[in-house]
């Protein structure tokens, strides 16, 4: 293939872009308060926190082709468990995060056994139904705050004495986690396992014919994807010291699907862009248009599905067909060359 020779160059250009984005993220707090207001740091934080979840979402929905309409359950569980830990036991962020990951691993394992029996729309329904369990439970259970949610969550500490309540330390903490999440997701995508996931997306039967156990692979990616959501939820509980039951709501899960589709799934970078667009536009539009902002966002999303179902990453890739992004979103090269 003609593609093969240019891959090192493309890989290089991707590394350059990645490094540039990282540099911007690292330098951003320096300008806060001088060049722009603290508001943008908060905005950027939210994009990064949801970005971590979206990386996991993309592994399941984009690469494996199973769209979850209930990813909010992992996010909410991560947030609730961490918040409860910090409020009642210890203020260590690590313990809160690990407990959240532990519970989500159990949830991901048990629900994985059930959802693996279904595909396409039925998969959507089942994940949607299970996340609704969590929503109803969180709403009805007085012990964890009921409809009011958890309030007055103390700021967790990185190590005893170093609080993450301050914006700037927390910002770098989140950048670190986004980086780790991106690295892990990229490793998974490029691994043998990642190629099998793409194989399941394209033709599950053939993957089974080759001797692989596709249900097991799906359960695995479902669980992994949930763990990304858990970390994201924990960080959110730290960023915003109250956890409402709405974290489990259908509109939350729907927003994740929207972020993925707007950005372009199966590319890792696409969902990150989608997250940035939805959150940035959401804030921008809601300050301009007050209540009508959801209308504009919804309309944008509808237009995107009608006219470019592949998402933004694909559009950009088509514009610069020889550039680095075609390497990111092109299914063509990646399966054959393996990278």
């Amino acid at each position, binding site marked *: 293939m003609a593609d093969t020779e240019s891959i090192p160059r493309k890989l290089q250009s991707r590394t350059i872009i990645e490094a540039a984005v990282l540099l911007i993220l690292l330098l951003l707090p320096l300008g806060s308060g001088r060049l722009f207001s603290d508001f943008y740091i908060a905005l950027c934080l939210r994009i990064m926190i949801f970005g971590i979840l979206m990386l996991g979402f993309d592994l399941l929905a984009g690469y494996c082709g199973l*769209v979850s309409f209930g990813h909010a359950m992992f996010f909410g569980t991560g947030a609730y468990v961490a918040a409860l830990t910090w409020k009642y036991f210890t203020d260590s962020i690590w313990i809160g995060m690990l407990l959240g990951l532990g519970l989500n691993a159990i949830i991901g394992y048990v629900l994985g056994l*059930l959802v693996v*029996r*279904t595909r*396409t*729309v*039925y998969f*959507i*329904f*089942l994940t*949607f*139904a*299970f996340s*609704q*369990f969590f929503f*109803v*439970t969180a709403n*009805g259970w007085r012990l964890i705050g009921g409809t009011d949610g958890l309030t007055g969550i103390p700021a967790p500490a990185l190590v005893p004495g170093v609080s993450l309540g301050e914006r700037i330390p927390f910002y770098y903490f989140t950048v670190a986690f986004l980086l780790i999440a991106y690295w892990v997701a990229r490793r998974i995508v490029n691994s043998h396992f990642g190629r099998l996931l793409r194989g399941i997306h394209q033709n599950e039967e053939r993957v089974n014919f080759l001797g692989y156990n596709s249900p097991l692979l799906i359960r695995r990616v479902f669980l992994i994807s949930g763990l990304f959501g858990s970390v994201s939820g924990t960080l959110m509980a730290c960023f915003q010291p109250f956890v409402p039951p709405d974290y489990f709501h*259908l*509109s939350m899960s*729907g927003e994740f*699907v*929207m972020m993925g*589709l707007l950005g372009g799934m199966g590319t890792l970078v696409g969902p990150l862009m989608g997250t940035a667009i939805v959150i940035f536009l959401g804030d921008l539009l809601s300050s301009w248009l007050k*209540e*009508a902002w*959801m*209308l504009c*966002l*919804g*309309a944008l*999303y*509808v237009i995107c*599905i*009608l006219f470019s*179902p592949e998402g933004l990453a694909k559009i950009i890739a088509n514009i610069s067909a020889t550039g680095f992004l075609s390497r990111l979103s092109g299914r063509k090269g990646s399966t054959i060359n393996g990278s």
Partner: protein
Amino acid sequence: MSFSGFLTNLLYGITIGSAYTLIASGLSIVFGVMGVLNFAHGSFVMLGAYTGLTIMNVTGNFWLSLTLAPLAVALLGGIVERSMVSRLYGKDVPSTLFLTFGLSMVFSNVVLLIWGGSHYSIQLPSYFKGFINLAGMYYPKFRLFVLLFSCALVAVLWLFLSRSRWGLPIRAGLHDLETVEAFGIDIYRVFSVLFIICSGLAAVAGVIIGSMRSINPMMDLDLITVALIVIVIGGLGSFKGALIGSLILGLAEAFGAQAAPGFAKFTTWVIMALVLILRPKGLFSER
């Protein structure tokens, strides 16, 4: 629970279930024939309720709002089908779900902009107020009307599907679209008619439910959730399944609300999850 209390709950469950049938059967048929999972179906119910409310407030005539609101929503349904949904025919089902999810966002925002966030209820005419004595059991008059009216509409819908000139290609389309087309039937016209009828039915249910309970900007999500559970229980694309699923859900709601008030919705989710686990394609799947 006393025996008459049990009967009242039973009747209430069936009443609610019959109203749900109006919503769920439309959703199910549209899915079964057209391969479109219309998340905006709940928005059509909500728009029907709000339009009915406005017509009722302006004219004061309940029957006018029960006929005009569905007509208006059916028109909207036709526009949505022609301009957007029709572009996705033949694509995978999830993408139609995602499109209509976006549409439902837009509609719920439009409702919020026009009618605001408060809770309303359609004021019933005086002859629908009060209770009726059914063999010693007092039952609200309007609920009885809802039960009879919904059953009549469902019967008409069933006759339309099983006996009319239009029903044949629709039923055939459930099984094999290509053959239907090969017989020279303009299947896309059938699709449009079907979509229009189903959105109108949803709006009828909206006016009815809006008179029994409150009308609020969250009702679209509530009702589409109910309808989705119903058709998942009954089996996607099955009319019979939608009927039985609605009854199950109505009864679960009526009795569940009494058994565990805080967790009324929990029962419905348990039922859905159980059905999906035991019979992933629902009780009466056609596809």
